[in-house]
């Protein structure tokens, strides 16, 4: 399982797809698609591989200080599944893109591959600074995608996105200096061991929040979410599909891979804060989604709400929560991506993304209607789709630690998400066409091939999620020093009632 190869492949693909493919969209699509499938072929086996790590080379040693920064790639269940998710989404995105990006398919493909590469790097890196590097590097291709293909306000959207992300992760940069300084290394496993002894608690708390901030912005959570809606609605839909499908997940992933292992004590101490933030995000996101009239803003806020639930559950440190979060990442990644792709396509029909400008698509473009409603129901978390299992596990874990009333609040998402999603579905599919002038068209075969597999996967994992749940179980429990604590507290909880 050569991680270096898996990491290098997308970058190679970016360059190849730029130089191999001609200027016309067709050849670009063909080339990039082949490359994407090859990458998928390389990366998918990772899922079965369990814990993998490369030999750590020295990336560089800071002069004077002597801190050694490692070039070290590691893969565990979570990162493996995220990489797999990514490598599955990229071909879909490419397939669904042509309508949206038109003649600039070549640039689009390269940028997408670049993003893929950086994301893979972030998911696999076993060194704090290396992770940060990839974490930051994502910004530029994402911003360029928004700027190059986006809507009318894309400049502002891109700038706001960049500035928010950069400012949000600056404290993490500072924290990394500090950690590197006190631990003399940034290798995660080593830092995890040394940080406890090297830093006094007050500093550690500071660093903990400094790092958390970066992930909270990436996720994002209320009130750090201001960049999100604009970025998702102004950017090109396929890119938004990637942003919400995978990049947002890296926020959660960061908590799982970096923050909790490095700061178990702080995580336990401030768990309540994060659960609260998560729940607020759930509610606010859902309520805002109810109010939106722009198709993709609805989707954006729904992502906000769903991931908020993930955050809240993650900080219960229940083993089932970990599995649930991983499943949520995959499920939401798939469904949200599908929705964004479809949204992007339908917008090219009406040249508008206002929900009132559609209507009657159920009869005018049945294939679209079918796929869209399946994706929507999956994102609502209907039983039989992966989303349900995820939400179930998350709610259970919240329930086990915080009891029934908190869970009831979290559970409101079950109702609200149905509310805004169905509202959207109805505006799109039901009624009479708002713009009868638009001639009726339906998905192309290629687009169906892009999206149908995603939905099939969603249903499959809805009935048979064990592979994902297992791989989360396999290696992550070791990362939860506080899980047992809360488990016992939970037992006490029952006895107390």
């Amino acid at each position, binding site marked *: 399982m050569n991680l270096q190869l898996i990491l290098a492949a997308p970058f190679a693909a970016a360059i190849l797809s730029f130089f191999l493919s001609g200027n016309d969209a067709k050849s670009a699509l063909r080339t990039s698609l082949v490359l994407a499938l090859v990458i998928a072929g390389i990366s998918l086996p990772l899922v079965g591989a369990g814990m993998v790590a490369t030999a750590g080379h020295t990336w560089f040693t800071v002069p004077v200080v002597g801190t050694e920064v490692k070039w070290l790639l590691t893969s565990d269940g979570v990162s493996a599944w995220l990489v797999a998710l990514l490598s599955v989404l990229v071909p879909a995105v490419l397939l669904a893109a042509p309508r949206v990006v038109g003649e600039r398919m070549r*640039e689009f493909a390269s940028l997408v591959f670049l993003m893929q590469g950086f994301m893979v790097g972030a998911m696999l890196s076993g060194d704090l600074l290396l992770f940060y590097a990839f974490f930051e590097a994502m910004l530029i291709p994402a911003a360029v995608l928004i700027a190059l293909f986006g809507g009318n306000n894309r400049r502002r959207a*891109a700038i706001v996105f960049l500035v928010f992300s950069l400012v949000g992760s600056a404290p993490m940069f500072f924290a990394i200096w500090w950690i590197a300084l006190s631990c003399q290394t940034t290798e995660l496993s080593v830092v995890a061991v040394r940080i406890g002894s090297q830093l006094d608690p007050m500093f550690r708390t500071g660093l903990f929040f400094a790092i958390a901030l970066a992930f909270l912005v990436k996720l994002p959570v209320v009130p750090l979410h201001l960049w999100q809606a604009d970025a998702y609605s102004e950017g090109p839909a396929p890119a938004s599909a990637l942003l919400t499908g995978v990049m947002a997940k890296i926020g959660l992933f960061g908590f799982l891979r970096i923050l909790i292992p490095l700061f178990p004590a702080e995580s336990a101490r401030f768990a309540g804060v994060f659960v609260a933030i998560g729940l607020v995000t759930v509610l606010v996101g859902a309520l805002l989604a109810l109010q939106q009239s722009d198709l993709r803003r609805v989707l954006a806020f729904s992502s906000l709400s769903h991931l908020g639930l993930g955050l809240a559950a993650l900080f219960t440190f229940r083993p089932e929560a970990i599995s649930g979060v991983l499943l949520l990442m995959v499920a939401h990644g798939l469904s949200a991506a599908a929705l964004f792709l479809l949204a992007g396509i339908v917008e090219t029909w009406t040249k508008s993304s206002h929900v009132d400008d559609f209507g009657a698509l159920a009869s005018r473009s049945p294939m679209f209607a079918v796929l869209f409603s399946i994706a929507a129901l999956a994102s609502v978390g209907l039983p039989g789709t992966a989303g349900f299992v995820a939400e179930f596990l998350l709610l259970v874990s919240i329930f086990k630690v915080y009891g029934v009333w908190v869970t009831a609040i979290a559970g409101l998402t079950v109702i609200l998400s149905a509310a805004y999603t169905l509202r959207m579905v109805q505006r799109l599919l039901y009624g009479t066409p708002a713009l009868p002038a638009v001639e009726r068209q339906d998905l192309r075969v290629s687009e169906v091939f892009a999206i149908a597999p995603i939905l099939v996967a969603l249903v499959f994992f809805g009935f048979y999620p064990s592979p994902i749940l297992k791989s989360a179980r396999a290696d992550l429990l070791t990362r939860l020093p506080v899980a047992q604590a809360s488990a016992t507290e939970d037992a006490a909880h029952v006895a107390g009632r």
Partner: protein
Amino acid sequence: MLPAVNLLPFIGPVLFLILGALATLVAEPFLGKHDKHKFLPWIGTIAAAMSGVALFFTAPGHLHGVFALDPVRAGLLLVLLVVLVLGLAALQRNLSSDGFEGGEPYVLLQLATIGAALMVMATQSISLFVGMELMSLAIYPLVGMRRKSSESAEAVLKYFAMGAVFSAVFLYGASLCYGATGTVGFGGTIAEGRAGVFNLGFVLMSVGLLFKIGMAPFHFWSPDAYTGATSGTTAFMAGAVKVGAMAALGNLWMNFLVTRAGFPLNSPLSLKVTIPPMLFYQMSPEAFSSIKSMAVLLFGILGLLSIAIGSLSVLGQVSVRRLLAFSGVANAGFMCLGFLLPSLARGYIDLSVTWYYLAGYALATTGALAALSALTGAGDSGDHLPALSGAARRSPLIGAVLTVFLASLAGLPPMAGFVAKFQLFHGLLLNVFSGLVQGVNPVSLLAIPGLALVLALVSAAAYFKVIVAIWSQPGQASREPDSVPVLLGWAVTLTAVALVALAIFPKHLFGA
């Protein structure tokens, strides 16, 4: 300490550059006005390539205590050569789109490179002075090249006048150092009672160099000069001048430290030395205090000042050249902060951080301006954001590399700028703990990296504005796709690759 070596293999790289310059000069009259821009740049490029090759056959050492070579210097020379090629390519683009007649600019570009190379290699004030003047005297005319444009005239006037004044200041300082140590060499032993003279000399010489680097408050020339010159020239001087002057300043600073520490120096220092720590414990308190105050004032406070001025001025700029000028000011500040790193308490004088930063910055800014020259068109009329918006759509490759360069300047991975900033701030933070030198309040030093980081973020916003602008829809001033010359295309692309490679393999540039 470097061994003495003999002439030829040592001087090789420079020799090739001289030959290139002369060849260009000789060939110039014999070429038709269109062929000039077709062929002349290639002569310089070939010369640069050859001297680059020659660089690998040089051994570390010094020549009569006048010039010296070591891995770091060699690395910087390599950067200089890249800058030269970029400059030639960009200049070719400018001159041919301006319909400029005459190939002298190429000659001057190479001569200026020689000057910068001499500055890098210089180990005594006179050779440094000669190199500095060679560089400056070659660049002044380049800045004033556009004789029809009043901007150009104004730029050259200011640049020349200030430059002349500060080179005089430098020379005066050199004379004082000579007086104090009895040698024009940087290193030496201070005759008793002349420490004050030595300090004054050092300050004056540093000010002379700080001017060239463009540190506040000696930076006023740079925005005007950058904007007045053709984007090609700007590209070249942004890189070459910084490299030359920065190397010289660093060399000067190390020698100052060593000299004040009373370290017996019978041959020039390499740019990366370690001194037995005890030496610094035996240092006389007054020497120590003067070192401390020099460091904090010249590099700490001035550094922060120029970071502040540069980063904040960057915000409102419309002209990308002007923007990069101010970014140059800011980055000069960062590099000078790097000079605070040699933690005397630990006995290091290791400026590698600065050298790495310098290399990364030079490549990035030169590359950015060179790439810009491909987009601005005749007379650099298109060098403002409205005209540039959507430029990258016209030529995606140029847009891509420009993005890479700007991102590196903004300190984003995976470009060298990121690694450099990390090392820099990281080291600074260390000094917060170990104390730059005993008795400096750590908190006040903690302010330095903190403030620097905040300002770096602020300036990043400006680079983002450019990046987003060039990629988003063509503005009202958009033109037809410009065909990018072969040389320029390859030069910027390879430079961008190099910039990324520098980040992924940071150890290898300076042969460490």
